[in-house]
């Protein structure tokens, strides 16, 4: 399934100014692919680059969309997904204005409302961030 712009609001409760996913290119039980283009009005942009917090939030929202997808597919409301833990994260470069972050996320493990995922984010084919994240889901 593909989602763009405000269609993504069906999948997560975050709203502007902290929506950090523009496109959900694919969403399955095992993986998710998303993208974000860095624009001047992004609250995580400073001196023409997207700061680490923005990159991590983009990955966290991808993870929250992924973790909440089964509930969405079954007709439920978007659930609040909270970051519980980050591990083995690397931020190798900071994207610039007009760059597009392309993120691929794989499910690593899942148990009792906790989802562990691994994400890789690239810009123009070069990896800029990678790491593991645990997301907790709560009913909104």
């Amino acid at each position: 399934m593909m989602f763009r712009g405000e269609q993504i609001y069906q999948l997560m409760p975050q709203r502007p100014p902290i929506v950090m996913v523009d496109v959900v290119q694919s969403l399955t039980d095992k993986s998710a692919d998303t993208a974000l283009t860095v624009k001047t009005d992004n609250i995580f942009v400073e001196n023409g680059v997207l700061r680490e917090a923005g990159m991590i939030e983009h990955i966290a929202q991808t993870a929250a969309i992924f973790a909440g997808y089964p509930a969405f597919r079954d007709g439920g409301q978007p659930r609040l997904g909270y970051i519980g833990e980050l591990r083995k994260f690397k931020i190798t470069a900071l994207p610039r204005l007009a760059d597009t972050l392309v993120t691929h996320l794989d499910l690593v493990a899942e148990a009792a409302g906790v989802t562990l995922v691994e994400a890789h984010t690239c810009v123009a084919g070069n990896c800029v961030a990678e790491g593991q994240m645990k997301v907790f889901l709560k009913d909104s």
Partner: protein
Amino acid sequence: MLIKNYYTILDRRTDSSAEVFRVSLNKDCDVYRGHFPEKPVCPGVCNMQMIVECASLVAGAGLRIGSIKQCRLTTLVTPVDYPVVEVRVTLLPSDDGSYHLEATIGQAADVYLSLKAELLKLDAIAND
């Protein structure tokens, strides 16, 4: 400050090897319009950024995250329930110009977020 009006530093003290910043979290910050509508919750990444900014004050230079060994977010922090928190930063310079960071956000003995990371000078990566 990256996220305008997110917090205000009230004071700073040295506690053995750590620099401790007492900060107030501003519930009127614009970020809470979206995180989440009618239910302000501190974005974990904004609290991590607040740590990086406190570490930059300690270093006397702008720093950014190079890698995160582990970051645990154990308590859901909101600016309403936790209007004042302590950011505790221990920053050790490495020979290669990076910094080893161990930091927490909490109050007294309670820890809401802990972060172990390597920080890099912001200038060093701007032209990557």
